[in-house]
């Protein structure tokens, strides 16, 4: 508990931490601005396939849709922001040399790893809450309410506005879970490294490469896809389908939890044996 308090203190005393919140805000603003100025043509483009046969009228470009678009693009970047803190947790301290001093204290290394994991988790939760606030509520303020359309590659889904808010709530909860998996992976990479750039870049590299694999339509990759965590971190989208594929989401959640536990356990086992030479 003491350790966790100290870890949180360190995280939130650092300017870097707030950069993440700034980046989220900035990207959100940029997308909102782009949607304000050019959203109509974007919608026109996206709805090409549908517009051939149907006329859709009303406030298509409403806050719910804009929030979805923001989430879709930001959830690629948020792993970077999570890694920025989680990847720095051990490696960063190794780099500035404080890990040495920290580990000469009568504190169990496993407890330190757990405290750092919990601190990363809390940071992730706050990041997602901030994202929810700025992406959803600000978009609703700017673009108003409305029914939401969700374009999937093989389906056009429409959700009634009265039926959306709970989906966002669930989606954000799921996003926290997904990003916690990223955080735990960053922490593991962080335990291997003596400077924080390595784990941050590696986290991004892994996420990007696996996301590409997850999205490639090749028979070979189809075999491994269900085992990649990147296939599952976009499970929040399931809440915007109708009907919600609960069993798939549940399976994805379970896989993400398993990944997280595996990452943390590996981190603890490795870190417990690691010689601190930095």
């Amino acid at each position: 508990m003491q350790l966790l308090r100290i870890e949180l203190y360190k995280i939130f005393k650092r300017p870097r931490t707030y950069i993440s919140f700034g980046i989220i805000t900035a990207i959100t603003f940029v997308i909102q601005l782009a949607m304000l100025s050019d959203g109509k043509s974007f919608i026109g483009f996206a709805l090409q396939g549908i517009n051939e046969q149907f006329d859709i009228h009303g406030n298509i470009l409403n806050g719910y849709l804009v929030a979805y678009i923001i989430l879709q693009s930001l959830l690629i970047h948020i792993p970077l922001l999570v890694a920025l803190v989680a990847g720095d947790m051990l490696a960063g301290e190794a780099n500035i040399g404080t890990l040495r001093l920290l580990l000469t204290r009568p504190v169990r290394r496993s407890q330190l790893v757990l405290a750092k994991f919990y601190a990363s988790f809390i940071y992730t939760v706050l990041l997602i809450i901030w994202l929810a606030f700025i992406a959803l509520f600000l978009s609703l303020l700017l673009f108003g309410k409305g029914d939401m359309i969700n374009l999937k590659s093989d389906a056009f889904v429409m959700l009634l506005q009265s039926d959306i808010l709970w989906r966002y709530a669930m989606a954000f909860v799921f996003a926290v879970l997904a990003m916690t998996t990223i955080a735990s992976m960053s922490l593991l990479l962080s335990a291997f490294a003596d400077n924080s750039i390595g784990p941050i870049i590696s986290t991004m590299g892994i996420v990007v490469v696996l996301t590409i694999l997850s999205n490639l339509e090749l028979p070979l990759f189809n075999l491994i896809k269900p085992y990649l965590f990147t296939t599952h971190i976009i499970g929040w989208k399931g809440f915007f389908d109708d009907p919600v594929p609960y069993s798939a989401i549940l399976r994805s959640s379970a896989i993400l939890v398993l990944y997280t536990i595996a990452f943390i356990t590996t981190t603890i086992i490795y870190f417990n044996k690691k010689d601190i030479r930095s």
Partner: protein
Amino acid sequence: MTPILEVSNLSKTFKTFKAVDGLSFAIGKGEVYGFLGQNGAGKSTTMRMALGLIFPDSGSIFINGSEFNNSHRHLLRSIGAIIERPDMYGYLSGWENLKIFAALSGTKVSAARLHEVLDIVGLKGREKDKVSAYSQGMKQRLGIAVAMAHQPELLILDEPTNGLDPQGIAEMRSLIISLSKDHGKTIMISSHLLHEIEQVATNMLILHKGKKISEGPVHQLLNPDDTLTEVTILPNEGLGAQLASSAWTQYADHVSAERLVFRMNPTRIPDLNKWLVEAGAQVQSISSKHSFETYFLNITSDAAAAHRVI
């Protein structure tokens, strides 16, 4: 009496490099234990093993008589340490750093105590500044404050004067002496410089390539009677015979026509000089160096000698 820190047959190999090789020693209460060796001799590795930063391949470590390993980290409560650089969180103030590390010390440390250690290390008034704005010396002193805040019995200081300017070195030296004398701390201190150790340590161990070369109380190892005084003279064939019949012959270590070496207490140099002049020798230079230093310099490389601070 149980030693505060005892190490027995400790070994550690990094890949193929044998950093520490069958090392044993014990540090008793109240000692200032100097760890002398060139860079890479294994001083830092040994200290890190004693602090649980590095895990030994074999051998045991005892803290206050209890065996220390990764599942007995509570024993670290009685140790405070600075390993290499005294790195702190630069984005936090000195006070915040001190509080954080004190909170993790396993001992309740009062705010009054923190003020007290700030006072001891002479950082009073600067504790609210961000550490990133501290000078190297201030960081080093903050490091000591952190190391001693929870009132450990043993302070492990790895090269505490590294990177300090001469004034900082002098300050650090007097601080260490004061910690030992006025605060009763047992201190383990490492350096690659003999005179650093010589000035503060009560006991000393020389480490070379991971092995103990010699160990003992400083006053024994550095007995002034073992100082070597080298005299160069213009070639004088007759001086040898004169010397042999004089009282100085008992100190003579080496005699040739132009170079004489005496092993004696350096307080005798003026008398020796007087005798040499009276004996008709034309003295060109007289220099004295402790035999231990010669010995130490011989076993350590030229690189270490080049680092010597005069």
